[in-house]
């Protein structure tokens, strides 16, 4: 498989806490490093800080793709206004 992979998209991705939307991401880039670490950098269009729960078992990044979506658990999250940087777990769906 890929040693280094970068994904980005124009379709809105979302951060979700359970079935609640925590953030709508207007632009986003997902990077898989050669060491296998997934990370996200994004700009949110809407964000609800109360629902941002990095490390929680129900806190996920949902990324639309052709015919479906990808789900990444969000391990850590750094917010600077609407700019976000996160480390992700491996794709679960």
């Amino acid at each position: 498989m890929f040693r280094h992979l970068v994904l980005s998209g124009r379709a809105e991705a979302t951060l979700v806490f359970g079935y609640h939307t925590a953030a709508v991401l207007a632009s986003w880039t997902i990077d898989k490093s050669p060491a296998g670490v997934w990370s996200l950098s994004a700009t949110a269009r809407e964000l609800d800080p109360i629902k941002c729960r990095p490390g929680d078992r129900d806190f996920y990044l949902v990324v639309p793709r052709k015919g479906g979506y990808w789900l990444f658990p969000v391990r850590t999250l750094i917010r600077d206004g609407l700019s976000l940087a996160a480390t992700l777990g491996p794709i679960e769906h």
Partner: protein
Amino acid sequence: MQTVRPAEVQLTLANGARITVRRRLNVREQREMYADVITFNRATGEVVRNPLELPRATICAYLLDWTVTDDRGELVTIRDHPRAVPDKARLDAVLDELDPDDYADLLATIDAHIGREKDRREVEKKTRSGNANADPISNSPSEPVGVSTGSGPLTPTITPPSWNS
């Protein structure tokens, strides 16, 4: 006092279909459910509550996903992804297409879930208040004390006012 975690519960209908529902509603979701049975007439300022809409509003408030199929056996999708909330307009439209018996089954299953969750929270409240050994359904005291609030003894404890004096 605490916030409501957005937890999901899987239930099975009598007809075998599976549904996913909210474990419980938070304040916003409850407010939206109540608002769903109210119409506001801008011209007259009148607020009209339609009890006939309450079953549909309850289903819309709780239902997150299901395994319902159409007449061709294809899954009727109501959720964009496994973490999404169904679009209200789409859900309303799909519910209207259900067989009435299936609709009643769906409502009864959700109502039963709401009742179970209410009972569970009552037990939790008793546990939190330090009454951990209390029976979830406790007996009424043998003699009424103070004013009854609904589930007490059948003997009335409040004397109705007399209109003759």
